[in-house]
């Protein structure tokens, strides 16, 4: 089930005006990413432990999500199954995939996501930092 939501005060930053969904099974890594996004000025940061919980959040009425940041290797619904579901649902949400898995694996999942119609901003190697995230968030803003 969805973990919780962190509301931020409005601040200027790369993430300002945007709502994020963090899909990460490891609580420490998820917490750090939530803090990082809040530091970038995110309007709201939703959290989910796996793909199924993330889909619940995305399907819930009244929940706005602009950018999803998802891990790949998670218990329950993993990142690959999650992006497949996302593509099948014709969601317009932007997606960033992150993992400590090797680049070939990340690239393979990215190719499948793009092929399935997912609006993929890119893939990132862990650990995630504000500096790595900012160019991809900027790319989301530049998209129509």
């Amino acid at each position, binding site marked *: 089930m969805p973990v919780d939501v962190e509301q931020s005060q409005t601040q200027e930053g790369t993430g300002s005006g945007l709502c994020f969904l963090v899909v990460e099974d490891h609580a*420490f890594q998820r917490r750090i990413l939530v803090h990082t996004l809040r530091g970038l000025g995110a309007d709201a940061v939703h959290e989910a432990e796996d793909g199924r919980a993330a889909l619940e959040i995305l399907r819930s009425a009244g929940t706005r999500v602009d950018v999803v940041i998802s891990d790949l290797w998670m218990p329950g619904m993993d990142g690959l199954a999650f992006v497949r579901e996302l593509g099948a649902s014709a969601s317009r949400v932007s997606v960033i995939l992150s993992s400590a898995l090797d680049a070939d694996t990340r690239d393979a999942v990215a190719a499948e996501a793009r092929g399935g119609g997912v609006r993929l901003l890119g893939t990132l190697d862990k650990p995630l930092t504000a500096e790595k995230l900012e160019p991809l968030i900027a790319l989301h803003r530049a998209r129509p």
Partner: protein
Amino acid sequence: MINEQLVEAMAIRARTSKGVIARSFRESTAEDMAKLRTCAAARTWGEVALHAHRLRGASEVMGATAMAEASRMLEAAALGADDARAARALDMLEREARSLDAYLENLDAR
């Protein structure tokens, strides 16, 4: 043991403190290690690989390179269902985890 500069920068950008991050990491590492011991004793190698992978990711966030490397070795051994290699890697990881915990406790007290 960790990259303090990296954690300090992360704390500033995330509008929190180095101590809060260190405490959170110590708690999550203790949980990860407990799960690893249980899964290794049961020889459920898929679970060992997953928890070692998670610990590697968390260690990399802190710039704890020795811990990340020990986790990577256990992850690889577990994926190969190699009992002997997994036992050696878990021993190494236990030593790294104890050293790192003592270091972080001291860091938190500073």
